[in-house]
């Protein structure tokens, strides 16, 4: 992997059929394709279905937002797809295709431990919610970088040290901090260190699981701006998981909304914000104030998300849905492409058999 450590961001994407500038949505080549991914907790008839037949495509240089309340399965999806989910979590089916820079696509679900180890961090890296928990408390920051570079490159000790310093500087931290321990840094600095670590091998895919949730609003703001800048410079694709939909609208190119283990809506961020098509998305949008722009009336969603052990029959959202119809209690709506709009929604309101409420119609 040593040759993949290229400092020049312009060269980040060598594939010939991708242009250096991001085109409109859907034009770039997919780097991570999640197909019909199902994840259970436990085995056999008592297993809880945490993620059901989820489809997601992450394209080069794209920021894909995955939104949902806690318990919706968004983190489970990310950990399951990368085979990092702990027991009793098991992958119950599907495919997770990674298109490496060179060579044929790999199905992570069929990969051996050795293959996974080679792919990890060099192709897919992660940032977790709590940097304090994610950093080894007894080693220096420099060692965290060193371990990664040692495992994936043949750089000399000196070169590794230099590279670690560069990476820290890239996120605005002085290289002298390499000899600090995690507890000596502030929360914002720790999360920046995590981001620098995640970018150490210039992976194609970075997965961030609520990376800014534990931070104050000002730091959160700064980090998001830095992330956008880094993405533009380095050209990685970002899967950003959060419960904060308003954050995603700022950051993401495309957003997928999850509810009770299923993806219920997928759309370009701008469009999702302007005209949500799923009643749940609508509810979510009206429960968080946006960081910028006009504030819609705050209504929230009545009720609470279902327990995995007792997911309602039919559309899992129907007990909380103001537009619930009879058929919603019986059948699960599929995630269908809305004609001519390049977006998907899983709701019976949009299959042409019912009148679409004005809030959920195209504006």
């Amino acid at each position, binding site marked *: 992997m040593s040759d993949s450590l290229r400092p020049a961001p312009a060269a980040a994407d060598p594939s010939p059929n991708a242009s250096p500038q991001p085109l409109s949505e859907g034009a770039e080549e997919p780097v991570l394709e999640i197909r019909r991914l199902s994840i259970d907790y436990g085995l056999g008839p008592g297993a809880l279905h945490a993620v059901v037949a989820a489809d997601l495509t992450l394209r080069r240089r794209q920021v894909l937002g995955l939104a949902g309340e806690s318990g919706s399965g968004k983190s489970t999806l990310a950990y399951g797809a990368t085979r990092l989910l702990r027991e009793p979590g098991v992958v119950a089916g599907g495919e997770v295709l990674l298109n490496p820079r060179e060579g044929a696509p790999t199905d992570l679900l069929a990969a051996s431990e050795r293959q996974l180890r080679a792919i990890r*961090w060099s192709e897919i890296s992660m940032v977790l919610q709590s940097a304090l928990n994610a950093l*080894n408390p*007894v080693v220096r920051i420099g060692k965290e970088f060193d*371990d990664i570079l040692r495992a994936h490159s043949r750089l000399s000790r000196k070169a590794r040290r230099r590279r670690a310093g560069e990476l820290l500087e890239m996120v605005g931290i002085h290289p002298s901090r390499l000899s600090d321990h995690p507890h000596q840094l502030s929360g914002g600095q720790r999360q920046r260190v995590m981001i620098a670590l995640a970018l150490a091998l210039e992976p194609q895919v970075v997965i961030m699981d609520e990376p800014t949730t534990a931070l104050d609003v000002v730091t959160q703001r700064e980090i998001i701006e830095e992330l956008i800048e880094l993405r533009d410079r380095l050209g990685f694709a970002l899967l950003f998981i959060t419960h904060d939909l308003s954050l995603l609208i700022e950051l993401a190119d495309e957003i997928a909304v999850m509810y009770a283990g299923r993806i219920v809506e997928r759309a370009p961020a701008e469009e999702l914000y302007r005209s949500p098509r799923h009643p749940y998305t609508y509810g979510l949008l009206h429960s968080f104030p946006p960081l910028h722009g006009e504030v819609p009336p705050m209504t929230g969603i009545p009720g609470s998300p279902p327990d995995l052990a007792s997911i309602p029959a039919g559309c899992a959202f129907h007990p909380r849905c103001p537009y619930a119809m009879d058929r919603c209690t019986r059948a699960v709506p599929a995630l269908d492409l809305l004609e001519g709009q390049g977006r998907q929604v899983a709701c019976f309101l949009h299959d042409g058999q019912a009148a679409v409420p004005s809030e959920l119609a195209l504006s």
Partner: protein
Amino acid sequence: MTTLARRLGVYLLTAWVAITVNFLLPRMMPGNPVRILIGKIHGRVTPQMVRAIEEQFGVGLHQGLWSQYLHYWDQLFHLNLGVSIALSAPVSSVLKQTVPWTVGLIGASTVLSFLLGTFVGTYLGWRRGTVFDAVLPVATFFQAVPYFFFGTVLLLVFASHLRWFPELGAYNEALTPHWHWAFVASVLRYGQLPAITVIVSSVAGWIMGMRNMMVTTVAEDFVLMAVAKGLPKRKVVAYAARNAVLPSISNFSLAMGLLVSGALLVELVFNYPGVGDLLLTAVQNEDYPLLQGIFLVITFTVLSANLIADVVYMALDPRIRREA
């Protein structure tokens, strides 16, 4: 460094408490045990010795408690711990001959036991759910067996019966204690079975503690991150173990008193010429000066070992935390 200073303060206080208890016990105990002792040994020992005992334990003195206490400290500073009744020799010179045996045997076997237990515990904690979990109930059993009883069984089976090890003592009596190879080899040979006793009896505690801490630590995010980074498995285990070992080390100083107490009795079983064996002599003869000297020496040794464990802990844990 403040944490270390605090610990040092605790140990100094502990030493002071031990010394003061030693001073007060014979003077405060109901039934005047020292006077009874003097009555018992009268005629068997020289009048000077009776006089020395009276002075050391404050019998028939026309001196206030406070000036006795000062005198006691003065004697202590001059390493004068009195004269052993049973052995008719100064306690300090008796201890000088026995302490090295004990420190050598118990020190070496305790450190070995800790290292062995930590490695086995790391492995069991990492490979949880395999057949190796069957080690746990066995470990529990050994944890519950008194050291000296286990020593007795080993002595019968492996020394008396199978003759794999020499039976009693610390070296071949035919050799003169001297720094030459034959003697050292003999010491190592005689020390094996007592050391095995101490190791097998105490290793279960370290295994269990390390195993449980590993299980807890492996559930931490930073271990999962180590996997996500694609680090080799050896490295991932090291990440977890490096953190999991910290409670084991702080337990090391907590368990030291218990460990040493258990290990001392092993000396009795094997007639090992250390402090434990001396303790038996002291108890059987109600040899108060010797008994008190042994207590002080054990306390100081344990406190020094604690201090070393603390220094190691601080070197390994950068978060120099205030003690929880």
